[in-house]
């Protein structure tokens, strides 16, 4: 499964990536030749011949003469991605330590994305789970209707647009938060943490606002399903309080599917990160991706895409495994645990 997904990604990107790699080999070879004084006396035809020979040699060494689907290439690429050896950028990006290796740059940016989206997911899921259980206990009430309507409207909204509206409201009109989320102080400064949190506020509020509606809607769906089951009726007959049934018994039993959606939404939040970080200029992986699009920095694009695919696929795999433990009715061995 993991390899199949990587294989498709490779298939989609392979040809383009090859073109870029060959282009960069040609550039580097031409440059070495130009700097070699011995070769300056050669005629243009002879020079071209030397360049072609050297290029072919390097292309062969890197295995680029074989198509992307040859076993050797696939093995190499997958191995490289696993080892996070993603090559170098073709542009002037650098990590703060001055390295142009994509591995270093991503490692610098990744924590910021994880910080923003991790916090947002925790807050959103907390609000969503509580709210979802709350409205599930009052099915058909005005709260339930408002919540459902809110979920429907927020799922049709582009989240990045809401981000822009938040900037107009909070950064331009009210002047409460900065419009650009890049902290002004240096990481070594003692107030850096507060500065970072202050700059994180606006994107965080936006992500929570756009997210909790559909969250509570999902939770409500699963909790209502559980509330309809016989064992809940048995507990009611036994005289257990409605609150306790709702928040403790029903919610606990609805946990496995809820857990699955938390994990999957976290793992797939990279797509949203590209958009949200672009709007707020939050210096994470998403903004790096956006800048790489602008500069057509293919190695960065491909590196991040591989990585995010990898993270997503591994999460799906782990979720499948853990699901079996959370819900004893599902056997791990049948391999399709997440289907509920």
């Amino acid at each position, binding site marked *: 499964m993991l390899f199949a997904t990587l294989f498709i990604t490779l298939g989609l990107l392979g040809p*383009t990536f090859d073109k870029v790699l060959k282009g960069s080999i040609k550039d580097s070879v031409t440059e070495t030749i130009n700097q070699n004084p011995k070769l300056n006396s050669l005629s243009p035809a002879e020079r071209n011949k030397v360049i072609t020979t050297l290029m072919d040699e390097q292309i062969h060494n890197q295995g680029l003469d074989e198509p992307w689907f040859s076993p050797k290439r696939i093995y190499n690429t997958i191995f490289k991605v696993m080892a996070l050896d993603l090559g170098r950028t073709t542009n002037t990006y650098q990590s703060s330590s001055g390295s142009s290796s994509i591995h270093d740059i991503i490692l610098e940016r990744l924590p910021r994305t994880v910080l923003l989206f991790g916090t947002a997911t925790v807050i959103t899921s907390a609000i969503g789970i509580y709210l979802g259980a709350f409205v599930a206990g009052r099915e058909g009430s005005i709260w339930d209707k408002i919540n459902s309507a809110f979920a429907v409207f927020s799922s*049709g909204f582009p989240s990045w647009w809401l981000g822009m509206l938040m900037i107009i409201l909070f950064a331009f009109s009210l002047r409460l938060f900065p419009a650009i989320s890049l902290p002004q102080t240096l990481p070594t400064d003692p107030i850096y943490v507060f500065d970072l949190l202050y700059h994180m506020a606006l994107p965080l509020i936006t992500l929570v606002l756009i997210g909790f509606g559909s969250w509570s809607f999902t939770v*409500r769906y699963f909790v*209502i399903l559980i509330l309809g089951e016989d064992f809940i009726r048995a507990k009611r007959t036994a005289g257990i309080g409605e609150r306790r049934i709702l928040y403790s018994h029903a919610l606990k039993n609805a946990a496995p599917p809820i857990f699955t959606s938390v994990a999957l939404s976290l793992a*797939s939040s990279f797509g949203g990160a590209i958009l949200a970080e*672009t709007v707020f200029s939050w210096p994470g992986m998403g903004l790096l991706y956006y800048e790489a699009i602008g500069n057509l920095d293919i190695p960065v694009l491909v590196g991040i895409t591989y990585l995010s695919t990898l993270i997503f696929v591994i999460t799906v795999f782990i979720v499948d495994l853990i699901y079996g433990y959370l819900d004893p009715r599902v056997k791990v061995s049948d391999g399709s645990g997440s289907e509920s």
Partner: protein
Amino acid sequence: MTASELLSRREVTSKLFRSKWGVGGIAILLALVSVSIYALVAIPLESNKEWSNPTYWQDYPKSVAPAWTNLGSGDRFVEHTILTSANAITSESISQGTKAVTYSWKIDYHYESYPSNIILDTTVTYSKQPILQLDIVRPDGKDFKLYYSTLPSPQSSSSTFSRRVTSDDAIMQASLKSHVGEFMCSVDAAKPRIMIFSDTQECRVLKGIYTVTETLYFFGDSDAVNDAKFILGGQVFGPMGTDDLGRDLSIGILWGAPVALFIGLVVAVVSTLIGLIYGVFAGFKGRHIDEGMMRINDIFYSLPFLPLLIILSVSIGRSIFLFVGFLVLFGWVGMAKISRSLALQIKNLQYVEAAKLMGESDTKIIFRHIIPQLLPITFASIALTVPAAILGEAALSFLGLGDPTIPTWGRILHDANSAGAAARGLWWWVMIPGLMIALTGVAFILIGNTLNTIVNPRSRIRVG
């Protein structure tokens, strides 16, 4: 569940129209369709093509709010007005071998503030140097001669020349100096845009009808005016304002409607149908074929959607037709899962068994007996796929990967974001296109959810 699929089409439609949310969704959709038709019919394709050409928009004001913002404030801001030769009263007279051509425009000036600029733009073809004269007659009867100058000598026997006289022009400022004494309040001849529209008795705006007259004196036989325009530079313009290149946002936003509906509907219909046939085939065939097909489905399900979409448009190309293809590539997966599970149920029904016993071919059973049962849920799924497709295209365009030849809502928002429109408070540039995306999305979600509730009562996804 299967019983509910047997609802007739008429029942589904009547239930849809009885639902509050369904009717709301249909109303929004109808409004969008009329906007699209209006855009396709009324807005010339030319301005659509000129969207990326800054010189086309030079007569428009930059980053100004929509004209209706004046409504509550009693005409506080000057509405940007472009008067072309079609709006002018023209006359021509010949005396002593000199041909005088005049263009005169009437402006009803009822604003509380001064214009940001006044511009006279003239294009003439001549063989002998003509004279250009500009006069303005104010509501109080005063006649200001603003400009009187010869145009440059012709390069060849007959050359075309454009002159743009703005209120920064030195000749205009110099000719206004003689009038400074007529004002009680101190005025600055270096700022014609203020002086021309000031009251002579008090320090305020003089409201009323201004008559602008442009006269060209020609000395050659075949000399003529090609085009004449007078522009009153304002702080508000059009129904939706302009962006910082002066582009009239209403044109881009109206054009965005048919584009978004096209992408949304085509992607939704094609991908849902592919998913339907794929899923039904897998479910009907069962066993290894089912297993294998669903594994492929799982793989597509676990691909990161947006990053791959971005890579595809970077490496393959950017046109809305390609986007449709990319979005279909990822869009069929959900429907395939649903239709497979339904096909698993339907294939065990007696009439399908009977058809099998009668020796009907698999294709015939799938297309004649199973798929018709799934049509209502297919329509619901189509409606629910549209917002995802529109949001996908908008997201791509927002990241600057949109089709460069067509203004779409996402592309307008991309320009807004790169220009920092949100932080500069240019709300109309951000709010209106986004609102259109949200409205379109919500319309289809409302219709889709209502359909879903009708055809599939067990699903708890319902609104209100």
